[in-house]
C-alpha cells in the first residue's frame, strides 16, 4: 500500500479482495510512459503527468493500475492464472478539478474459463461496493464487443467494413458516422489507372512488384514498415468494395441490434429476435454470452438488475469482450468500470496469449456518495 492517502474503505475492501483470492500488490507511482502511449494511444499524452528520467526515458505518474499490475506480473514471471488487487492514488490531468484519485480494484490474469472470470469481475465489483456501504439502487450497465463483432460477421459485411465499424464501437457518434459513410458508398478516389486495373483483376503479384519499385525509388526501407504485399492486398480489397455500399436491410438490422437496451435476463430473447429477423446466427458469441449469464447467476448476481446495452463498449483496441460500469442513476461518472482486455498483455510483451479481465472502483466518488468523504 502506498500509505500516502488512506481511504475509509481500505479495511473492508482489502479483506474482501483477500478473501476472494486477490492479494494486494504494490506498484510504483512513477511508471514508464511508453506502455501507456503504446496501448491507449497518444490521446492519453495530454491527460497524464509526463516527466523525463535522467537517461531521457519517458516516465509518468501512473494514470491507472491495470498496466502497472500487468507489467509487474510479467516482470515477476508469475504463474497463471493469478488475481491481483490494488489500491492507491492515480493521477490524471484535467482542465479543471482534481488531478489525484484513489482507486482500488482487481486484475484477473490468465483464467482460461472466460465466462466465469467475467462473472467474477462483475460479482466482485458489486460486492466491493457493498463493502464500502453503497446501497442498492445503483445502475449496472453491461456491453459485449464479442456480440457486436459476431453480428457484423453474420451480416456478411466485407472485412474492411467490419474493421471500420469495430474500431468505433462504444463511440456512438463515430459509429453512426461510419455507418452513414458505408451506406452512402465509398467516395471516388484517385488512383493510377494501371494500378486500378491490376487491383480489379486481383493481380496481387504484379501489383506487389509495382509497389516495390515505387518503394525502392523512394528509398523506403522494405522491412521495417508496411510491405509491398500488404499494400497490394489492401488496395485489392479497397477497389473490390469501392462500388458497393451497405444496403438498407443490413443497415436497419445493425441499427436494430445497436438499439437493444434491456435487462440482462431478457437479452438473449431480444438478441435472437433481432438476429432472427434477418436469419442471422450469432453462433459461439451468443453461446458465450449465455454461459456468462449462467456464471453470473451462479455468482448470485441478479440478472434482472443489470442493463444490457448492445452499443455499450470502449473504443480501445485491447478491450475485446465484456465491458461494464456501475453508476448512481443520473450520474455522469461511474463508481466502477471494468472489462475484458485479452490483448493488453500481448501488447505489453507477454510471450503467450493471456486472457484478462478486471475492474476498478473510483473511491473518491464512492466516498462522496456514502458521505464518508474524509479527504
Amino acid at each position, binding site marked *: 500500500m502506498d500509505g500516502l492517502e488512506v481511504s475509509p474503505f481500505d479495511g473492508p475492501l482489502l479483506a474482501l479482495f483477500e478473501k476472494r483470492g486477490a492479494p494486494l500488490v504494490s506498484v510504483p507511482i512513477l511508471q514508464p510512459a511508453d506502455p501507456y502511449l503504446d496501448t491507449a494511444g497518444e490521446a492519453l499524452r495530454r491527460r497524464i503527468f509526463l516527466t523525463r528520467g535522467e537517461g531521457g526515458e519517458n516516465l509518468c505518474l501512473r494514470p491507472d493500475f491495470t498496466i502497472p499490475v500487468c507489467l509487474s506480473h510479467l516482470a515477476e514471471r508469475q504463474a497463471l492464472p493469478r488475481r491481483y488487487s490494488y489500491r492507491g492514488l492515480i493521477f490524471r490531468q484535467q482542465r479543471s478539478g482534481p488531478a489525484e484519485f484513489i482507486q482500488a480494484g482487481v486484475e484477473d490474469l490468465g483464467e482460461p474459463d472466460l465466462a466465469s472470470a467475467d462473472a467474477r469481475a462483475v460479482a466482485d465489483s458489486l460486492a466491493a461496493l457493498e463493502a464500502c456501504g453503497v446501497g442498492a439502487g445503483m445502475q449496472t450497465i453491461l456491453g459485449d464487443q464479442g456480440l457486436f463483432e459476431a453480428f457484423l460477421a453474420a451480416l456478411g459485411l466485407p472485412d474492411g467494413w467490419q474493421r471500420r465499424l469495430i474500431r468505433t464501437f462504444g463511440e456512438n457518434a463515430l459509429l453512426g458516422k461510419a455507418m452513414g459513410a458505408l451506406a452512402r458508398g465509398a467516395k471516388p478516389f484517385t488512383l493510377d489507372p494501371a494500378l486500378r486495373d491490376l487491383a480489379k483483376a486481383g493481380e496481387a503479384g504484379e501489383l506487389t512488384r509495382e509497389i516495390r519499385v515505387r518503394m525502392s525509388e523512394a528509398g*523506403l526501407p522494405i522491412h521495417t*514498415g508496411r510491405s509491398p504485399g*500488404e499494400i497490394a492486398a489492401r488496395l485489392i480489397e479497397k477497389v473490390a468494395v469501392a462500388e458497393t455500399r451497405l444496403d438498407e436491410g443490413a443497415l436497419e438490422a445493425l441499427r436494430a441490434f445497436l438499439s437493444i437496451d434491456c435487462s440482462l435476463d431478457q437479452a438473449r430473447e431480444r438478441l435472437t429476435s433481432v438476429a432472427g429477423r434477418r436469419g442471422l446466427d450469432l453462433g459461439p458469441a451468443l453461446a458465450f454470452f449465455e454461459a456468462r449469464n449462467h456464471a453470473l447467476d451462479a455468482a448470485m448476481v441478479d440478472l434482472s438488475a443489470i442493463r444490457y446495452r448492445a452499443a455499450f463498449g470502449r473504443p480501445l483496441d485491447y478491450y475485446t469482450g465484456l465491458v461494464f460500469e456501475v453508476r448512481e442513476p443520473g450520474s455522469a461518472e461511474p463508481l466502477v468500470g471494468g472489462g475484458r482486455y485479452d490483448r493488453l498483455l500481448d501488447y505489453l510483451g507477454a510471450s503467450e496469449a493471456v486472457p484478462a479481465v478486471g475492474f476498478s472502483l473510483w473511491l473518491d466518488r464512492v466516498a462522496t456518495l456514502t458521505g464518508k468523504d474524509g479527504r
Partner: protein
Amino acid sequence: MTLTLALPSKGRLKDQTVERLAEVGIMVSSPEDARSYRANVAGIEGLEVLLLSASEIARELRDGGIDFGVTGEDLVRETIPDPDRSVEIVARLGFGHADVVVAVPEAWVDVEAMEDLDDVAAGFRQKHRRRLRIATKYARLTQSFFTRRHGIQSYRIVESLGATEGAPAAGSADIIVDITSTGSTLVANRLKVLSDGVILKSEACLVMAKRERAEADALLAAEIAARFD
C-alpha cells in the same frame, strides 16, 4: 504605460512584417547594435518592439511575456494549449503562407484519405508489433487532428527535430505531419498529401495576448488592433 510587440528577428518574415507595420504607420528600424534584440520604433507612443524567433514569440504569447506578437498561426496553435481562450488573432497578414499537412509515402497507393489511414493505423499493431509512427514537430496539432477530428487512437508521435520529410526513408517513422508551402520538398521525398489531410492553412498573424490591462494600456492595445482593421 508600455506594451510590447515581438517581431520575427530575421529573414523574409521579418522584412514583410516591417513593411506591413509601416503601412499602418508603425515604423520599425533595426537596432544600431546588431546583437541587440530591441528595435527602434516611431509613429506610435508607448510601444516597445522586440526581435525574437518565431517560435519564441509563440511561447512568449503563451507565457504572457509580451502583449503582441507576429508569428505563424501554426506555431500559435501548436504552442498554446487553449489558443482561443488565451490569445486573439488580431489580423491575418497575408504572407508567410504554409499548410500543415499529413503526408504518406507515394508508394502507399491504397492510402488516399484519412479514412484509409485510420484503417492502416488500426491494423498496424497486429502486423508489425508496433504502432504506426508519425514524425512531426507539431505533436499537438497532429493529436487533435487524428484523435479529436478523426477518432484515430492508434499511432505514436515521433518528435522530429530536423528534416521531418526524411523520416520515412530513414525508417524512423512511417508517415509525417509537416509544414509545406509549395509541396516541392514532399514531392522530392516521394511523399503525398492526403486528399483531406490539410490540418491547418497557416499564415503570419498579428496575435494579442488576452489579459487584464490598465486602462491606458487597454486603449493602446485597442488602437494598435484598430490600425489593422
